[in-house]
């Protein structure tokens, strides 16, 4: 399941719901990305998406992750709009028979969300606003899955 939401979400509640009725799952991995305050300089992050295009792009690499890591299930929640420091921006949950597949699948999805999902991030700070582009590290993190395949 992939959700793009305009409101705060409860990562703990989503994890508990994901863990329910899993008699054939041996491992669930989770990742939560939070908005940082950068020492009080950031007032809010603003996340922008291209609606169905963004959803379809995330669905495509979720399908790739499912096949590659033999995942049983995925739940991604990505928040849009203005996000204050401390709030969750993104949640990625993966379920698999064994831990390595669940962990690697989660890692793959987070790396792809960082630089390959149609999302744009703006930092609204005390010193003004600026768009944040993916760093060299972000791009290298996503590219390492191609080198390894």
């Amino acid at each position, binding site marked *: 399941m992939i959700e793009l939401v305009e409101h705060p979400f409860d990562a703990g509640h989503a994890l508990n719901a994901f863990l329910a009725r899993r008699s054939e799952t041996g491992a669930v991995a989770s990742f939560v*990305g939070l908005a940082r305050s950068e020492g009080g300089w950031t007032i809010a992050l603003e*996340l*922008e998406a*291209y609606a*169905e*295009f963004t959803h*379809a792009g995330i669905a495509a690499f979720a399908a790739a992750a499912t096949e590659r890591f033999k995942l049983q299930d995925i739940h991604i929640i*990505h928040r849009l709009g203005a996000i204050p420091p401390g709030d969750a*921006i*993104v949640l990625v949950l993966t379920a698999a028979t064994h831990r390595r597949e669940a962990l690697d699948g989660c890692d793959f999805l*987070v790396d792809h*969300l*960082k*630089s*390959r*999902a*149609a*999302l*744009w*991030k*703006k930092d609204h700070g005390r010193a003004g606003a600026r*768009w*944040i*582009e*993916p760093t060299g590290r*972000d791009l290298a993190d996503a590219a390492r899955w191609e080198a390894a395949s």
Partner: protein
Amino acid sequence: MTRVLLFGRLSDVAGWRERAIDPPPDTLAALRELLRLEAPELGRALEGPGIQAAVDRALVLGDVTLSPGAEVAFLPPMSGG
């Protein structure tokens, strides 16, 4: 009518996020030229590194023909999470 969408920093450069262009340009290159003539700064930004274009919600490379009701989006480098 061609619907044009700008995302991320491109909408700040242009001062708009979405607009309709009528009569519709025949090709993506013609649309780029039209935008460049109207706003050179946006024209340059659209040619910048890492800017992708999507036509009717599919990424395209190079020039393509546009149908009269096409939706064209210009996408800066993506940055989620």
